[in-house]
């Protein structure tokens, strides 16, 4: 596997390969030394054009546990301000002998653009409104660990579907396994043609009832200014996972959230603490999944031949 750009292009078999390997990686995480030599001698660079302490740290730890040399490029202090183009940055990283680049960018398609213009491996850590493949893979890993399968499940995704790369990656990934996917959110945040890929529920009650998994999405509060949502309070009342809606969710339904959570907007603190909430576990699993992805991207016998 040379790159991991998204789950839309990735086959079912490739996803299973990653999830299986992540299981092994998780045992390493549980060991005391937390160190393997898999990436010894490899240079792994994180290039984040958007702040995300949690994703960046997760990737960096994954690389470090596998003995890679890691470097993180902070965009504020580097090239962008000097007027260097992204293409220039890519060429520089190539000259610096980068083996794997982990990139996050606010524009859809940037990892694809880099992959087209470089010789190293590119891992998409979130691009615009397009994909966040490792987040979806860790969600799938968590579901499989808890429910024993990722096939033929009833899954609801709630919130800002339009802008969510997490939603897209989850839809592309989960759709490959015969799952029934339902989405729900304010109409302003439901993209056109999503009905080709998921059932669009007409109420939150309908969306969450009888589901095996409810994936709740983070809402960007700036969306209020652009007319997508009206207020935090209203969002919480009509679209949030609050105590009222819990009446429709069974005790065995997994409640997931990619984090960081806006407490009292998307989800209440009480709901977060329920035993069927997997929010903290997802973070741990994220490292294991990213270790698996890093491992596969640096092997010659890859998923992408």
């Amino acid at each position, binding site marked *: 596997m040379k790159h991991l750009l998204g789950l839309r292009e990735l086959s079912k078999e490739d996803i299973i390969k990653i999830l299986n390997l992540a299981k092994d990686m998780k045992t390493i995480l549980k060991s005391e030394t937390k160190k393997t030599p898999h990436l010894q001698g490899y240079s792994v660079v994180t290039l984040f054009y958007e702040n995300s302490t949690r994703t960046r740290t997760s990737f960096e730890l994954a690389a470090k546990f596998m003995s890679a040399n890691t470097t993180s490029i902070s965009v504020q202090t580097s090239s962008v301000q000097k007027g260097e*183009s992204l293409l220039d940055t890519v060429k520089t990283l190539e000259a610096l002998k980068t083996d794997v680049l982990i990139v996050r960018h606010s*524009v859809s*398609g940037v990892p694809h653009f880099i992959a087209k*213009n470089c010789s190293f491996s590119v891992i998409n850590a979130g691009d*615009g409104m*397009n*994909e966040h493949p490792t987040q979806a893979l860790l969600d799938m890993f968590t579901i499989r660990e808890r429910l024993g399968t990722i096939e033929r499940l009833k899954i609801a995704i709630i919130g800002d579907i339009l802008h969510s790369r997490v939603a897209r990656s989850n839809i592309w990934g989960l759709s490959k396994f015969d799952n029934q996917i339902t989405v729900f959110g304010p109409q302003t945040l439901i993209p*056109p043609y999503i009905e080709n890929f998921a059932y669009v529920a007409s109420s939150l009650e309908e969306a969450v009832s009888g589901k095996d998994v409810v994936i709740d999405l983070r809402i960007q509060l700036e969306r209020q200014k652009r007319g997508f949502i009206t207020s935090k309070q209203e969002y919480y009342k009509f679209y949030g996972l609050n105590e009222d809606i819990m009446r429709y969710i069974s005790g065995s339904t997994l409640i997931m959230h990619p984090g960081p959570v806006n407490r009292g907007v998307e989800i209440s603190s009480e709901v977060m603490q329920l035993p069927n909430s997997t929010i903290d576990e997802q973070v741990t699993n994220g490292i294991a999944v990213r270790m698996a992805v890093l491992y596969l991207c640096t092997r010659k016998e890859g998923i992408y031949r």
Partner: protein
Amino acid sequence: MILIKNAQIVNSIHDKNEKADILIVDDKIEKIGINIEENPDNMIIIDASGKYVMPSFTDIHCHLREPGFEYKEDIKSGSRAALAGGFTTICCMPNTNPPIDNRAMIAYIKYRAKEVSPIEVLPVGAITKGLSGEELAEIGFMKEEGAIAISDDGKCVMNANIMRNALLYSKDFSIPVISHCEDSNLSEGGQINLGYVSTITGLRGIPREAESIIVARDILLAKETKAHLHITHVSTKESVRLIKIAKEWGVNVTADTCPHYISLTEEEVLGFNTNAKVNPPLRTQEDVEALIEGLKEGVIDCISTDHAPHHKDEKNVEFNLAASGTIGFETAFSVLFTYLVEKNGFDIGKIVELLHHNPRKIIGLSPNVIKEGKKANLVIVDLKKKWEVKEDNIVSKSKNSVFLGKLLTSYVETVIYNGKILKKDGVLNC
């Protein structure tokens, strides 16, 4: 003297295609007939057996980028590219730097064109000073100097009152107002058509209503003012519908669409291909069909290229930073032939109307068909030739064609302008 032998002449959809020889003396067509006598001593003889001869084309919407952006294209390189595609009259849009918004700039374009262009370049003046959408430019002076139309192309005149006044004022000078229809509040931040592909790729979408709302607005303003409104680069089925209604109302409205809107869909963007980023964006198959139907019915009057050259560095970047536009001169005819004639059964004569008669009529020029006594402005095309669009065979300074890699049928082999052979057997001669 030039003698074209055995040419299949196509003048329009109404004339019968005749097979004849064409004798050109100086800049005029001297004689059309069967077996005109050859005289190798003082004649260039072109054998056009199996080829078609038609009037050379007119493009009412293109960007030559001079002054200000000569690294993308200039009047000379753009004219040569146009010529390569069979165009001998082209109208360049005013969004240059500085913009073409006053008499001196019109004079400058005319002067430069005379110096460096092998073909006819007609400038389009701005509607508003500095293309700011705020204050009317000196439309009368620009017309006097040679502007053939006014347009703020690239931007929409968002203030309906300014647009209304532009339409009213243009009437005194009998000059069409070419409208770039795009509600910028609806399109803001958008990269591609809002729809299936924007949902799949997560690229921000532009709703089709961004175009059709302004089409409707401008039609209403044209209805009231009775001015000549020309709607350029129509891309949606709703716009076609609205223009059809306007014509039924008797509104003085004409419209064009571009080769890429009648052939390609938003799916070209999958894979984040920035050459497929154009404005308005590529739409859906339904729109393509509605546009073709609109051309068939005469709702859409003509084809313009919206030739929009951009440097490689402006396209090989993040999608949102990529400049909008595709070059279009060199592929226009072949795209129309491939997608309209081959795939949709259009008469070849109809293509001549879309590329010659109708665009000329819109800007007040009479047709120049292939008849004795007319100026010798014509193209010889091979309708059977198949070719792949490649960067290497592009004449334009910029290579940003949305058709790169596409296989097209038909090719403009030879172009004669004012009796001079400027392109022969695929090779430019200027």
